[in-house]
């Protein structure tokens, strides 16, 4: 096949000691960026972009994409250890990753997260290698109606997840939508719900909310429970990798499902964050062990991580072939391409063959190098949990505060983070689930824009969502998923949780 020849040519470009050194530097930097909440991949790449102007484009993009891979890997670390998602796409990783750490299985959770990230990425790169032109054409079919259908499907696949009362889930989600609507309304260009305060113009940033709700909220809960970090029992065993890998083959279906969901969301482009939520939601619904999700299931870590990394990688495809970024980080990389004198778009694969295939080859290598680096560090990361809570807690609060500040360089966000921390604590105490709120906050904005764009183009006709098989199919699937809990409640068996928590 022609692609394999080109790919081998690409490896020849990418494998030079200089490029591999850049790769290692990039991945280590990326992991650090991923660990620090607030300093996301997009910021990290943007900060380092000017440094690369002197390099040749291939080396430059190898380094910058390596930062991106590193950030994708790194986001999972704090999510598992401290319940603080380092990156938006690791929020879903906290749901089962942190309970695993509390059970003393932090090393397994980390190995599981890293390995599934790797699997997701490699699946997506293979797709890019062989199907780039076909997929690029497919992405063009996505208009506002199709985007909304995908976002609706994400919400639907997540419905009925809460173990508590369905009304509490609904309340939590609605609060998320309300928070998402603060700030500038993209469709009318006017400010909403700011009550004349300049600080609110920016809206409630997802990361600030998440750092507070999860990170600070968790610290507050831990303090109440006697200043003991429940993960302290983590024992260091060097066989963690083998032990975890043995469990993975039985999750082949979840891997495959998450890979497909992730690639789909990366290309369309929905992005890594919704992909991780959808991957988790679908796995919970369809996996045999789904009802144990949320209590520390390895599969609950695998599902979102695979999807997030597949999406993060697949997002490079629309960037290269169409010039539309599939994620905020891809948007910054796109700017870099233009500055280096490369024009992303339909002709890039024809005119800049060497660059494109060098980049694709570096995606394979970057992920292999990344996996080796992070796996060797697992015992180190897990050892952090052995530090006494009284020492680590203030450190976490400081890191959270810095993270919240970094999002917008605003002190206001640090106060917001603390308020969200108290809110997160109250939610946990009162049995309200946090995930629906977080999902609504991250996707609410985009879903609203897509919905209203679609309504504008159809001049108010709701049937626009069924105007072709693509959006109609996704919408119908979404409706079916949304109604599933109701159906299974009426006709199906009652699950254990419902018995355990009578409403």
């Amino acid at each position, binding site marked *: 096949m022609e692609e394999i020849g080109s790919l081998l040519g690409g490896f020849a470009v990418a494998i030079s000691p200089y490029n591999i050194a850049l790769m290692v530097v990039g991945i280590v930097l990326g992991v650090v960026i991923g660990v620090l909440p607030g300093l996301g991949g997009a910021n990290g790449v943007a900060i380092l972009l000017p440094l690369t*102007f002197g390099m040749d484009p291939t080396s430059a993009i190898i380094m910058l994409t390596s930062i991106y891979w590193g950030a994708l890997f790194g986001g999972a670390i704090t999510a598992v250890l401290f319940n603080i998602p380092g990156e938006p796409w690791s929020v879903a990783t906290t749901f089962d990753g942190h309970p695993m750490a509390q059970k003393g299985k932090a090393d397994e959770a980390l190995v599981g997260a890293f390995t599934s990230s790797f699997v997701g990425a490699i699946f997506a790169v293979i797709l890019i290698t062989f199907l780039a032109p076909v997929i690029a054409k497919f992405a063009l079919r996505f208009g506002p109606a199709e985007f909304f259908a995908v976002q609706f499907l994400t919400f639907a696949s997540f419905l009925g997840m809460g173990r508590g009362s369905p009304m509490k889930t609904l309340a939590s989600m609605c609060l998320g939508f309300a928070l998402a609507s603060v*700030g500038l309304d993209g469709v009318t*260009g006017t*400010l909403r719900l*700011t009550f004349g305060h300049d600080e609110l113009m920016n809206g409630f940033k997802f990361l600030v909310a998440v750092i507070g709700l999860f990170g600070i909220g968790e610290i507050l809960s831990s303090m109440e429970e006697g200043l003991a970090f429940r993960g302290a029992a983590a024992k260091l065993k060097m066989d963690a990798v083998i032990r975890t890998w043995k469990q993975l083959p039985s999750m082949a279906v979840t891997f495959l499902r998450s890979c497909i969901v992730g690639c789909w969301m990366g290309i369309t482009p929905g992005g890594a964050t919704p992909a991780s939520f959808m991957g988790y939601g679908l796995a919970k619904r369809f996996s045999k062990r789904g009802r144990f999700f949320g209590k520390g299931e390895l599969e609950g870590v695998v599902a979102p991580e695979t999807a997030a990394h597949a999406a993060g990688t697949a997002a490079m495809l629309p960037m290269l072939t169409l010039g*539309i970024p599939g994620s*905020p980080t891809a948007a910054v990389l796109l700017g870099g391409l*233009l500055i280096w004198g490369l024009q992303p778009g*339909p002709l890039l694969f024809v005119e800049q063959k060497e660059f494109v295939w060098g980049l694709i080859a570096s995606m394979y290598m970057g992920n292999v190098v990344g996996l080796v680096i992070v796996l060797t560090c697992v015992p180190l990361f897990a050892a952090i949990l052995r530090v006494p809570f009284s020492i680590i807690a203030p450190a976490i609060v400081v890191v959270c505060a810095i993270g919240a500040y970094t999002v917008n360089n605003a002190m206001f966000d640090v106060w917001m983070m603390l308020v969200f921390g108290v809110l997160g604590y109250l939610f946990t105490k009162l049995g309200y689930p946090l995930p629906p709120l977080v999902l609504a906050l991250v996707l609410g904005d985009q879903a609203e824009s897509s919905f209203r764009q679609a309504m504008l183009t159809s001049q108010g006709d709701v049937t626009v969502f069924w105007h072709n098989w693509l959006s109609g199919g996704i919408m119908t699937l979404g409706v079916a998923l949304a109604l599933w809990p109701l159906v299974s409640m009426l006709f199906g068996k009652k699950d254990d949780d419902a018995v355990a928590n009578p409403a």
Partner: protein
Amino acid sequence: MIGKSLRKTAIALAAGAAMLTAFAPGAARAEWAPTKAVTFIIPAGTGGGADQMARFIQGVIQKNNLLDKPVVVINKGGGAGAEGFIEMKGSAKDPHKIIITLSNLFTTPLGTGAPFSWKDMKPVAMLALDQFILWTNAEKNYADAKAYIDAVKAGTDRQFKMGGTGSKQEDQIITAAIEKQTDGKKFTYVPYDGGGKVAVQLVGGHIDSSVNNPIEAVAQWRGKQLKPLCIFDSKRSTYTEKVTDDMAWSDIPTCTEAGLPVEYQMLRGIFTTAGATDEQVAFYVDLFKKVLATEDWKEFMKKGAFNQTFMSGAEFDKWLTDTEAKHKELMQGAGFLAAAQ
């Protein structure tokens, strides 16, 4: 101990210097230079046109050692850029802050009522003007701008969909200006969150036309997916090098030529804080002149088909006053002004 006394001496010296300048203003026109890192604010998100230009400038300054102190670029794009401008307004006494502008310098205060105007800052220089081009899907094959406008006139009201970046900002203002030429037939304006996305939506046939900047749609033009109908400038582009197989930017007719008398360009300019002294402004003007003289910058201008007009001082102030008035008129006509105004 030595460190301490050294520091004391340094403080004393600095105080003395400050007193000297305070008591003898203008006597020694010592050239000002930044004494700490310069913060370069982008009143927009990462990845957009302003972001690209600002980061490019940062790279050029760094590569050519044009400044001793580092340049720190930050995005403050909240509230359609109001966040960045209000920060500039709030730090009037700190001349170590500069900001790059796009049309939201005028449109955001008018459209959202956010409390700032360009007069709350000190203008440094206009670096360039960004162009706008009327694009359609190449498969529709409209012969020229007139043919497209005729099709709009012949269609039903709101049948044609114009895609653009943001709401009540430059793209929608141009759309409103075009609507004055369409016998009362309106477009359905669909706002997206980025220019690249608009171009792709146009290729996919989800909208009928766009007014993308050259750089946002050039890839699709070269890929024969989009067709440029006319450029919203008073004269044709000066870039005569072939971009596609048979056309250069200069081959695109002006919209006035094509029978659609609408002109609009977007300011890519630099401002510093209101309290900056004349010599501080002069320093920045000088710095940007050096940036503009580099080969990298010229290449960047060519790629984006920018209109290379440089302005500073009184000339720039006048341009700003005129352009603000023009925006107010256009936005008032289209009903885009915030309720409070």
